[in-house]
């Protein structure tokens, strides 16, 4: 009951709106709105009214056109880039140094003995194919087990359609395990290239069986490699470097990685305030077939990021002093929706395998992790170049005989690569180190005696010179006079910009604000309400009409043109007591005849009294009376006391 009361009250309140007809509502709106045009339409004379009407329309359409442009501009999410160059105190980059050669040959000789003999024999065959048989007698029999897994072949392509494939050792066991259909050939134009690739493939397969601790031991130790270190005016030594094992370069050492300690800052440009290193790469202990380049591999990268030396490292030559001036090139992107990048990689669907090193996300790490994940799924083992997911082992020839084939087919597959490229995102803040490299001979002829002497003494505690020009490298890494170049994106259009432009346009053309829009909405609600009221009353009128026609079907059919005049039907006064009418309006159907009620209904569409002048109980009364009228008509039809119509058609 309360609810009903509440609704009735709400009804009243809403009905207190600006009027009962659209025209009235419109006039009221124009008069009271705060947008500047409509008022003039009402107030001015007929000619000016027309002018003002069109002007208002024109300005309104201008406003909407401009708004469309502005909103489109905003939704395109453009960015502006700003570029700044200068010098500021910056974190000194992390410096990773490695030897180009991964292991000391003296340490791994026993593991690679078979392989070395095999490659020597193969080289002999390649160089002198005709004399091959005669020279083989001298050497002990070769262990061809390694050979059969991945043989070296000669491909004779004189006949393009039908290449002849010759195994170098003439054994016909090519593609022994899985049938000849599953063979792929990687071809090289130069034998040197082929032999190196083959050797790398074989040796990594052998070395992957050696446990990591052992491999680290076989590599170069920090105290042997880093002979002297000076950062700014402060001395440092090999203990300031963090060891990391790199599959290609063995032990690598990272200065200023920022893992355990604070990253070092450098606030002065110039070589005097940078990092100075003297390295020993001991070239005489290189594995002969594995690495053909001699020198140190080094790379500058961000703190806490993994160094991808094979892709981004540079070489420093032995016997020289290499000076590297650093310019930090930063790119700061806006995140979604401005550009497609990731802040920390947490929203990338690839599991970052490099997180076991505690390093931050990078697109390189993501691509490699993605490849390794594919590899373990398809081939069942992990490639030695990349870190392992949990519960998977590295590939080797014994356990996974087909891994090399699987790997090379996966690597050449474009679809797999595309999947990885699509799922990995760039980082939003990208830092690169631009280097200006210059070299000078070091040590100079005049000073080499004492320098070699001191360095050998310090390393080996011997008075003999154990170092030479081929094994020694000096590095200077320092900030240039302008040490940063930052390209940062910022949104070209912000929401503030959008709103002030919208407001500027609306205010400029029509003097309106958001509140005007709300006013407009209010008017629409009002007119909707009027429509609802009209529709209801129209429906009722229709029903009533129907009822009326049903009452007098023959009369209606015979005298269609005749208008039923009041007084033709007379009903006796209703037995019910008349409803007390306190209001001025006539709302009791019992006191009037049916035709008058009908007339009243038909007049419902006529303009109602202006808003607010009709007392509220009256309007409800109208509704109620309509309903009651309808019921009354039905009653009348059934009541026997009702006098029949003159023609007696009922």
């Amino acid at each position, binding site marked *: 009951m309360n609810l009903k009361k509440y609704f009735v009250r709400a009804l009243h309140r809403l009905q207190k709106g600006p009027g009962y007809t659209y025209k009235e509502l419109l006039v009221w709106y124009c008069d009271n709105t705060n947008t500047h045009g409509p008022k003039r339409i009402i107030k001015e004379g007929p000619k000016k009214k027309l002018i003002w009407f069109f002007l208002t329309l024109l300005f309104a359409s201008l406003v909407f056109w401009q708004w469309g442009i502005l909103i489109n501009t905003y939704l395109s999410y453009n960015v502006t880039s700003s570029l700044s160059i200068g010098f500021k105190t910056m974190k000194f980059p992390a410096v990773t140094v490695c030897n180009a050669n991964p292991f000391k040959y003296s340490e791994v000789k026993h593991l690679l003995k078979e392989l070395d003999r095999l490659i020597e024999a193969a080289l002999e065959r390649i160089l002198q194919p005709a004399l091959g048989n005669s020279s083989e007698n001298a050497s002990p029999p070769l262990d061809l087990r390694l050979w059969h897994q991945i043989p070296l072949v000669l491909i004779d392509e004189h006949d393009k359609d039908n290449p002849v494939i010759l195994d170098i050792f003439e054994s016909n066991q090519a593609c022994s395990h899985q049938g000849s259909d599953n063979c792929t050939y990687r071809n090289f134009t130069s034998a040197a290239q082929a032999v190196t690739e083959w050797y790398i493939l074989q040796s990594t397969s052998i070395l992957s069986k050696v446990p990591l601790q052992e491999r680290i031991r076989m590599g170069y130790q920090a105290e042997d490699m880093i002979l002297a270190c000076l950062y700014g005016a402060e001395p*440092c030594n090999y203990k300031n470097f963090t060891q990391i094992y790199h599959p290609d370069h063995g032990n690598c050492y990272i200065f200023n990685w920022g893992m355990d300690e604070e990253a070092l800052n450098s606030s002065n440009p110039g070589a005097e305030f940078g990092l100075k290193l003297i390295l020993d790469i001991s070239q005489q202990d290189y594995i002969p077939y594995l690495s053909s380049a001699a020198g140190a591999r080094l790379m500058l990268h961000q703190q806490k990021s993994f160094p991808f030396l094979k892709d981004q490292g540079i070489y420093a030559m032995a016997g020289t002093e290499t000076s590297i001036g650093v310019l930090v090139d930063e790119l700061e992107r806006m995140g979604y929706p401005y550009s497609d990048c990731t802040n920390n990689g947490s929203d990338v669907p690839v599991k970052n395998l490099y997180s076991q090193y505690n390093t931050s996300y990078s697109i390189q790490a993501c691509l490699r992790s993605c490849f390794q994940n594919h590899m373990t799924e398809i081939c069942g083992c992990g490639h030695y170049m990349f870190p392992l997911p949990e519960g998977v082992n590295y590939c080797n020839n014994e356990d996974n005989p087909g891994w090399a084939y699987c790997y090379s087919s996966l690597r050449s597959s474009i679809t797999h690569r595309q999947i990885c490229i699509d799922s990995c995102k760039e980082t939003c803040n990208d830092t690169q180190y631009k280097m200006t490299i210059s070299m000078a001979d070091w040590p100079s002829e005049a000073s080499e005696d004492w320098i070699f002497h001191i360095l050998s003494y310090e390393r080996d505690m011997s008075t003999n010179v154990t170092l030479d020009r081929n094994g020694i490298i000096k590095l200077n890494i320092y900030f*240039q006079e302008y040490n940063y170049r930052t390209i940062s994106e910022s949104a070209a259009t912000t929401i503030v910009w959008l709103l002030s432009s919208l407001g500027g346009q609306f205010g400029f053309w029509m003097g309106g604000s*958001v509140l005007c829009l709300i006013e407009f909405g209010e008017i629409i609600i009002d007119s909707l309400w009027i429509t609802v009221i009209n529709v209801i009353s129209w429906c009722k009128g229709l029903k009533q009409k129907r009822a009326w026609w049903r009452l007098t079907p023959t009369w209606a059919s015979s005298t269609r043109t005749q208008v039923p005049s009041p007084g033709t039907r007379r009903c006796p006064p209703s037995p019910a007591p008349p409803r007390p009418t306190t209001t001025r309006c006539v709302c009791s159907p019992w006191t009037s005849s049916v035709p008058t009620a009908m007339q009243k209904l038909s007049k419902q569409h006529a303009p109602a009294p202006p808003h607010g002048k009709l007392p509220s109980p009256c309007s409800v009364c109208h509704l109620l009376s309509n309903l009651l009228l309808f019921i009354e008509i039905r009653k009348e039809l059934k009541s026997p006391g009702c006098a029949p119509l003159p023609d007696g058609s009922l």
Partner: protein
Amino acid sequence: MAPGKKITARIKRTLPVKGPQAPTLSELMRWYCLNTNTHGCRRIVVSRGRLRRFIWILLTLSAVGLILWQCAELLMNYYSASVSVTVQFQKLPFPAVTICNINPYKYSSMKDYLSELDKETKKALETFYGFSEGKSKVRRSVDEWNSTGSDFFKQIPLLKFEDFSKTATDLRSGQKRKIEGSVFHKDSSIVNSGDSNDIIGFQLCDANNSSECALYTFSSGVNAIQEWYKLHYMNIMAQIPLETKEKLSYSADDLLLTCFFDGLSCDKRHFTRFHHPLHGNCYTFNSGENGTILSTSTGGSEYGLQVVLYIDEADYNPFLVTSTGAKIIVHDQNEYPFIEDIGTEIETAAATSIGMHFTRSRKLSKPYSDCTETGADIPVENLYNKSYSLQICLHSCFQKAMVDSCGCAQYAQPLPAGAEYCNYKKNPNWMYCYYRLHEKFVKEQLGCQQICKDACSFKEWALTTSIAQWPSTVLPSVSPLRTDLANLMVFYKDLNERFISENPANTLVILLSNFGGQLGLWMSCSVVCVIEIVEVFFIDSLSIVMRRQWQKAKKWWNDRKRERPGKPPQADNLERQCHDNPVCIDEDLPTFNTALRLPLPQDNPLPRTPPPNYSTLRLETAFTEQLPDTLEVGQH
């Protein structure tokens, strides 16, 4: 009437007093809402029904909130800059190219000055590392030792530390001795102390206070010996006059063998000599000294500078410089070449081609970024006779600090007015002082890095180097000279100039129009309505509140007075009378009613005579309500 009162009355007559627009706060609000130009407020009043009114109040308030928030955003983003990059193709001025030999002075001619130091160094090498060049030579030098031993080496000997037990082997006597004083690098952020057993270094003591000692240690003997050698070397060089030093160094003929520029031959007249304290004589090509600056109209190595340098490797100082080659720097004619810091090294027996890419950059100074246009606003005197740069500022700042605290100037930087270079004879304490200061400088405790700012505009030549073997081995005639020659080519890779300039992203006009947009969008408000708000909410409301408080206070005061025995009725009457009596206004604030009910009855003689007693006062009141009282009096 007193003249003062007359004047106030006159003022009141001529300047009509007007209070706020309505007597009460609620009426004032209503008046404001009806008359304001902002949209929301009017709606509150115009709307019928409590619900609608409430909704409109809510909407208006939220619109005000939005305006405040958005305008704050606009203000905060006002100082941001945008950057424009323009690339131009044009005839480019060729930069100045300064070329130095890495070795500053010919070792053969320096023998006289450095023989003692070299002997000392060799001795150190022999004692600590068992190194000797030739047995006979060393023995002779050892024999000579006692006769030529100078005071100055005794002070700062090289020391070798056996672990950190504070005992050290002295170079001179070979004896172990106790070392006191703070070990300098022990607690620094980077070194891992106490590991290797062969740390080498030297000790510097304050000459005035020998207990103040600083110990310099190095992890490698190479660094230690070079550092120690350089310290003594600077001591010696500081005593040699500039003319002599220039003679000791390389002449243009020594250094430059051939020269080509833009396809034409050039010679030493195109080079300007410039003496660098650490690199000796350097030669600047295209220094602009005679007023003309060369320019190139074609890019590529053919049209750049091509020089063959003679690097006399045999005449190198073995301890001072350890690498062979030349150093070059590409800079603007107005810039000072900081060769020791950012020079590019050139290898011997090789052809080095350096491609340049020219970038000019211009930043906006304050308040957009913290940079300086000319360096004039920086409290550091520019010691170099060149235009401002960050490097110049840092070096000048250090030199200034050095002169202030040590009393003499450091050798590697120019002399400030009235100072002279440090040498051991005149300033026995300078080394200790210098190292202390340098330590502070690197650790940013001197404040130089904070004072010095970037220059707002600068030119930069980005260099790309590539090296090839030169001369090729098929030329047998040059082979004996091979390792002493270096070929250098400096050229523009392309003749486009990149110009990066900042311009303000916002102007005041944009700021104002954005403000207008925001105010208009949310409330159709303008500056006028801001003024209205200030008027109504601050001035009018405040005065209403003030007046009410004043009246309350007054009433309270009067009530208290009335309770006091003696003259309560008088006070009561006075108050009641004053409410409408204009004469009493002087002690009161102008009220709304009085303001409306003016004018002042000017020629009313009645108030002039002060009421003598209670009854006459009653008689003379002008109000009808008091009629019964007067009647009463009459009945008496």
